[in-house]
């Protein structure tokens, strides 16, 4: 049963056809990787899924409902969370406040005028936030300013902020970009654990083949804005068209 259905999506920027007739189907409870060389349209596709861009034509259906024309916060409330290429967190707030905000968003919706309650009395929200911080091994840092965290910890924090919402679909935009090998491996372990423990459906955009083949259960290869093939990692590895378009002479 597929949770995300992309059909015939086109997007042009002036003379550049960024996406040409893209079809993609992400099945529930899988980790689906979207790979492709630079400029293949991976990020454009992702932006079309979260409401940052609106495709020129085609349809994007999540869980039976179209997401086109909806604002980012509405799409998030439908159950899609996004992890950014560089961690987007609330740098001026403490770690626990960072995690409490998505808890409030989940409980109260996209706006509630809760100006007369006190944050320190929201026991349920605090417990929820502390539980997720314990899960990503950050409980001891909960009163630190988020901006002062290391890059790896910022990534873990952003992940925790997405996970605490219990999303139906987690979108990851190059979650290991610019990371050292050790950090990359830690992130892979973290994501594997999330997949195993929470059975969250993931769609991941990634350059690093090591990450892709460690995590993905399905892979779609994009080239020049069009999907080339979609298959299991084993078949993708040996696929001649993929080798030609993307992997080139690289040994995989």
């Amino acid at each position, binding site marked *: 049963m597929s949770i995300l259905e992309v059909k015939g999506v086109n997007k042009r920027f002036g003379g550049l056809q960024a996406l040409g007739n893209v079809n993609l189907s992400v099945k529930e409870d899988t980790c689906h990787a979207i790979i492709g060389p630079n400029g293949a349209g991976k990020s454009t596709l992702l932006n079309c899924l979260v409401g940052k861009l609106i495709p020129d034509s085609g349809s994007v259906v999540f869980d039976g409902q179209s997401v086109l024309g909806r*604002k980012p*916060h509405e799409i998030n409330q439908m159950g899609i969370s996004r992890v*950014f290429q560089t961690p987007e967190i609330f740098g001026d707030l403490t770690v626990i406040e960072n995690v409490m*905000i998505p808890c409030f968003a989940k409980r109260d919706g996209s706006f509630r005028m*809760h*100006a007369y309650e006190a944050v320190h009395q929201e026991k349920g929200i605090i417990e929820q936030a502390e539980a997720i911080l314990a899960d990503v091994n950050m409980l001891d840092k909960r009163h630190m300013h988020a901006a002062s965290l290391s890059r790896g910890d910022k990534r873990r924090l952003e992940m925790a902020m997405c996970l605490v919402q219990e999303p139906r679909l987690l979108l990851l935009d190059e979650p290991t970009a610019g990371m050292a090998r050790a950090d990359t491996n830690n992130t892979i372990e973290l994501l594997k654990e999330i997949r195993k423990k929470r059975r969250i459906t993931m769609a991941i955009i990634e350059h690093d083949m090591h990450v892709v083949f460690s995590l993905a259960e399905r892979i779609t290869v994009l080239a020049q804005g069009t999907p080339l093939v979609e298959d299991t990692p084993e078949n993708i590895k040996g696929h001649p068209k993929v080798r030609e378009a993307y992997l080139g002479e690289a040994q995989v």
Partner: protein
Amino acid sequence: MLGLSQKDTRFLFIVIALTLLTPFLLNPFPTDSALAQFNAGYPALMQRFAIYGLMAIGFNILFGLTGYLSFGHAAFLGVGSYAAVWMFKLLSMNVLPAIIMATLLAGLFALVIGFISLRRSGIYFSILTLAFAEMSYRLAYSVFTPVTNGESGLQLGLKDPRILDAPLTSASLPVPGLFGLKMNSSWTLDLGPWDFTFNVGYYFCAVVAILGFYLSLRIFRSPFGLMLRAIKSNQNRLNYTGLNSRPYTLAAFVISGMYAGLAGGLLAAMDPLVGAERMQWTASGEVVLMTIVGGVGTLMGPVLGAGFIKYAENIFSKINESILHSWFSWLPDGLEDAVVWIFARFVGEGWHLTLGLMFMVIVIALPGGLVEGGQRIARFLRRKSDDSAATTTPAE
């Protein structure tokens, strides 16, 4: 207590105590001493401390928490003042309906301006609010003269209907009051060489300002306040976390507009004469200065900033050349004239120069404003006492 943490409750009680003791605290010098002109404990100035402090508290909810810098808050101050005077003219000289009407009307006005201005952020938002405030100022002089009475200003008249009050028996204008307590009545306490003035108007403003401070404390500590701080920190992340930033910023804008309207209503309650210059952009800029001087985003900062600027405005502008001459009379004649000439540029009508210099020093040396200055002193003192403790321990 009161829905606050223990630390905040203590903080609130300190603020209440300081506010209620203001007539003592601001009058440290005996009345006949040479330093008496630095006393600020007279009613008109104390009232302004409370009123502009209240306005800055509200402004800080918008600017300090969300980072949206409005350059048009004087418009709400003006609307509040006009609304209050009209309530005095039409309904009653009681200040309660006047300040309630001032708050509500300013809130409505803020809803309209905020709805349009908040479509943009950053500098564009600031310019939009500035444009709206300047439009209001110009309109008060032109189209709206039947409401604002144009350049002569809106004031009370003997023939005003005042439908709730008894008809006037005397030929003098009535004074705003609270169930018989006249706002301008004062009681003076003579204590040796000191005179302390307790004014009804000041205490009324002080109580309203304390309520406003308490409300702002609750907002700072609420989930709503957390969302506002998140908007300042990373609005993009907030939107991708399923929260709609627009209604949050609009709510903050309306709340701060209502604070400004309330402050305008209080100004009119203390002195029921309003001119349109109250809406001019310099007045909008003043509240921005107050917030920055005191400390953006801190609870106490805006109040301190308001006090600081109003003190400078009222005290430095009172000093004139003859006072300077009496201070420097011990200098040789030629030198005395030179020194007096230099200092005279910074006092009297030149007080803005002093304010500008102080503003520059604060912004450069203490980006966190007066509150940061206080924190640094506290940290320095604590370190000093820690050091002395550390040196005494080994001796035992």
